[in-house]
């Protein structure tokens, strides 16, 4: 046996693009054919002249035998006595093949067994699709081969169903992505199995009663197959065994083609081919879904009602109605992705092709510095934004929009922990942020600008291609900032949003670094983090970015342990941020004008207001000199903001809250600060549920003048409130339990009162009145609402000092009554 054994395992060769691997694979199959029939003639057939046939199945049957892969051999026996009685001969035969270096994977079956559906052993059924007679009892084999096509045709559904199930399980095992840093070229999505799957599905689908088809693969799949097959061939010869994992070492060796090696470029070629293979497999799966389920067919009709003038929905996929419009109106592409983001419906293959074919037009359009942020924000803040971004990535539109992201396409950064390429990591991070569980999910609901958050995630690692250049662990941050900044200016994102994105990118590792290396029970550590973060809104966004980033490294990184560490840090910093209000005041303001207004305000004021806003406040303060008060009301994106500057007086805050309540407004957020001069700067962000201000411009004026008069004491706010609708009594199933907490430690000068209650119009007025009527003076206020929950923090003094225990319980009673009106 040795002569043929020598040629059996070829020596390792450089991975070249020119060798035709199919010939090598077929040659090897022929060699093995010879060895098998020689061994069978010598050891098997002399004593078993009939009732036994040798059949090649699986890869061997296809004549695609890789140097060290298993040889799938079927011993077809007429009945079960033959294998029992001829066991010694069969063992000797197999032993002979093993000794010659063949890894035989044999199965012994009767024709009946081969013509049955095996739910638990789909591999057996599928391997028979590639059957090829080798030697032995021909008539016996004919029994199987004649009946086999009809068997397939009659059991088509079951066979396809099982194969689909197997494939989906395999895909899930590999996290449904082909962007693995060390892929298994056989099993990973986009590998050889995916290509075989496509072929098998076609065979099953097209089988008729008389024969199995041998479908021709389309060109692009043939190319992918050649590439992957050559790759597997090279891996086998390199390692001398059935090694299919494209390890980092293997990548290095294979990329070295004698002209120096560019591993990254070489891997990009791999991903290109894997993408084609995976897409074909996914399309095959989709086709199966579409054809197999009656229920699905009904469901399909319901979703197509989402069709609109630009797009139609058919079979759960969205299509362009007039794709040629992309030429004249490239923003149609953006509207398409908004549709996807809104409804969660995937692109049809047609739409994908149409977009891909017009990429240069789109790129041309996007290259002109246009104001694209509003349209993009629409996409990025919707429920299904992650799906939309992924579609944009797949079609190439994302790179047309942001050429700065091309540097991370299929970028491999080799690292023990990271499972994915950098662009896949980014997409996974975005998905994780959107589907964060429990408490983190609540944070997402509270973040005011989701689109901004998503944009920051999109660019947070964009500079990773340059991390060699910059020093240290955080080397990529600067480069990511630059890439992000360039992209933001390209789409004309407004400055405040740009600031937030830059902040998030610059600090996206702050929290995980603190978790790892600082003592979370140490007040100084928390204080430092709070200083770096600045405001609660930024803290929430940053926490989400951190959560998303960590859990996108690989599926097992975000352990409950790590998740609770992060949450612990978040809570501690949150407390610190809401607590330092009354402590840290601006001492010497380096302002040209306006120093008088700003000195004595909490340091937080500088952090939460831009230069423009501060200038506006200063102007307002000047106005207030004349009449003792100045009120400004203007509209925000989806709410209104009232700012008032005046001298401090008792009950002021309550009265202002009451004024807004009297006009039917719903207060969402509020801040009340006082400075060294005894001036008060109150800001209310409120919603106008009945759109009164929008529809009646004169109401805006009336609100403003009323507010001024109430502040100056010329109007009693209780008169205003007499006519407001009575608050609805709280339902039996109170969704939010009222919680009132007094904290004497938070501040050196005041008592902190934190109230969580079910939100309702007029709540703030009632609470503030309760405090005032109990003799309390409100120093600082921080109001927030979260869905139907109001979270109000007051810093209160009585007679200039903290509250006594008795005063606390009396005030607590009043507050409780205020929360739950009779």
């Amino acid at each position, binding site marked *: 046996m040795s002569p043929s054994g020598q040629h059996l395992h070829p020596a390792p060769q450089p991975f070249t693009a020119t060798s035709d691997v199919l010939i090598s694979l077929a040659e090897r199959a022929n060699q093995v054919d010879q060895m098998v029939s020689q061994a069978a003639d010598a050891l098997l057939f002399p004593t078993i002249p009939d009732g036994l046939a040798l059949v090649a199945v699986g890869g061997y049957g296809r004549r695609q035998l890789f140097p060290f892969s298993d040889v799938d051999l079927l011993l077809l026996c007429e009945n079960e006595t033959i294998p029992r009685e001829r066991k010694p001969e069969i063992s000797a035969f197999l032993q002979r093949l093993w000794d010659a270096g063949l890894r035989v994977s044999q199965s012994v079956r009767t024709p009946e067994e081969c013509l049955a559906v095996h739910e638990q052993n789909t591999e057996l059924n599928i391997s028979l699709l590639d059957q090829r007679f080798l030697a032995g009892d021909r008539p016996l084999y004919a029994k199987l081969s004649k009946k086999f096509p009809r068997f397939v045709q009659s059991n088509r559904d079951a066979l396809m169903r099982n194969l689909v199930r197997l494939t989906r399980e395999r895909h899930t095992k590999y996290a449904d992505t082909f962007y693995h840093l060390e892929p298994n070229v056989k099993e990973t999505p986009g590998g050889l199995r995916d290509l075989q799957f496509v072929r098998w599905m076609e065979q099953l689908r097209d089988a008729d009663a008389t024969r199995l088809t041998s479908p021709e693969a389309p060109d692009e799949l043939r190319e992918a197959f050649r590439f992957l097959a050559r790759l597997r061939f090279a891996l086998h010869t390199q390692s001398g065994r059935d090694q299919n994992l494209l390890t980092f070492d293997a990548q290095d060796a294979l990329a070295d083609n004698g002209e120096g090696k560019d591993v990254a470029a070489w891997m990009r070629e791999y991903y290109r081919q894997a993408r084609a293979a995976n897409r074909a497999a996914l399309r095959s799966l989709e086709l199966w879904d579409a054809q197999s389920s009656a229920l699905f067919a009904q469901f399909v009709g319901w979703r197509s009602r989402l069709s609109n003038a630009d797009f139609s929905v058919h079979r759960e996929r969205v299509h362009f109605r007039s794709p040629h419009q992309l030429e004249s109106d490239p923003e149609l592409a953006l509207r398409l992705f908004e549709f996807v983001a809104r409804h969660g419906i995937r692109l049809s293959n047609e739409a994908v092709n149409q977009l891909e074919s017009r990429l240069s037009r789109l790129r041309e359009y996007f290259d002109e510095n246009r104001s694209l942020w509003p349209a993009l924000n629409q996409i990025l803040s919707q429920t299904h934004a992650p799906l939309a971004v992924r579609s944009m990535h797949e079609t190439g539109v994302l790179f047309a929009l942001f050429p700065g992201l091309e540097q991370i396409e299929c970028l491999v950064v080799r690292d023990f922990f990271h499972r994915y390429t950098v662009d896949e990591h980014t997409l996974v991070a975005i998905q994780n942020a959107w589907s964060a569980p429990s408490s983190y999910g609540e944070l997402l609901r509270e973040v005011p600008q989701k689109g901004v958050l998503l944009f920051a995630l999109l660019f947070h690692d964009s500079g990773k291609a340059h991390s060699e250049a910059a020093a240290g662990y955080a080397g990529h941050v600067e480069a990511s900032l630059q890439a992000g900044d360039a992209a933001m200016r390209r789409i004309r994102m407004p400055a405040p949003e740009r600031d937030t994105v830059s902040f998030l990118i610059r600090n996206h590792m702050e929290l995980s670094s603190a978790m*790892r290396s600082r003592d979370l029970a140490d007040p100084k550590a928390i204080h430092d983090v709070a200083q770096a973060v600045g405001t609660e809104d930024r803290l929430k966004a940053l926490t989400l970015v951190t959560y998303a980033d960590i859990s996108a490294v690989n599926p097992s990184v975000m352990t409950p342990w790590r998740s609770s560490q992060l949450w612990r840090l978040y*809570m501690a910093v949150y407390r610190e941020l809401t607590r330092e209000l009354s402590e840290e005041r601006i001492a010497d303001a380096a302002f040209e004008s306006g120093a008088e207004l700003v000195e004595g305000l909490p340091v937080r004021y500088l952090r939460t207001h831009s230069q423009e806003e501060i200038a506006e406040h200063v102007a307002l303060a000047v106005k207030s000199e004349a009449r003792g008060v100045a009120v400004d009301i203007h509209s925000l994106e989806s709410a209104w903001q009232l700012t008032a500057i005046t001298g401090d007086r008792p009950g002021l805050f309550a009265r202002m809250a009451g004024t807004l309540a009297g006009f039917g407004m719903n207060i969402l957020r509020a801040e009340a600060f006082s400075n060294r001069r005894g001036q008060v700067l109150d800001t209310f962000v409120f919603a106008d549920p009945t759109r009164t201000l929008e529809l009646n411009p004169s109401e805006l004026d009336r609100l403003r003048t009323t507010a001024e008069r109430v502040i100056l004491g010329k109007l009693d706010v209780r008169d205003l409130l007499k006519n407001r609708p009575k608050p609805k009594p709280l339902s039996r199933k109170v969704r939010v339990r009222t*919680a009132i907490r007094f904290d004497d430690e938070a501040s050196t000068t005041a008592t902190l009162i934190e109230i969580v209650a079910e939100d309702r119009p007029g709540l703030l007025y009632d609470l503030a009145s309760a405090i005032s009527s109990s003799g309390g003076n409100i120093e600082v206020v921080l109001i927030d609402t979260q869905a139907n929950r109001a979270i109000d923090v007051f810093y209160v003094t009585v007679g200039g000092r903290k509250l006594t225990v008795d005063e606390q319980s009396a005030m607590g009673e009043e507050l409780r009554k205020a929360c739950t009106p009779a």
Partner: protein
Amino acid sequence: MKKIEAIIQPFKLDEVKEALQAIGVEGMTISEVRGHGRQKGHKEVYRGQEYTVDLLPKVKVEVVVGDGRVDEVTRTIVEAARTGKIGDGKIFVLDVIEAIRIRNDDRGESVL
């Protein structure tokens, strides 16, 4: 041979690892664990809801050394991990009956 199990504060892990490597202890096993000592933990309030934190995240470092090195190793860990505050952690020393290298079946202290 003795196994030294140290439960330490997570932020002290890098320091402890470096200190052990500096005295020539190369092999170690690290796990993320949760627990508490006699001072159980505390209540935290967030947004009106109480969170009882009684299982605090810690890190467990396990090393196996020859009998002669136990004192040196425990002293090293203590110095690296100590902050002086509650929550610093504890070290336990256990007997090891046998050590085997899986790759080649070597046994005994030479395996460490």
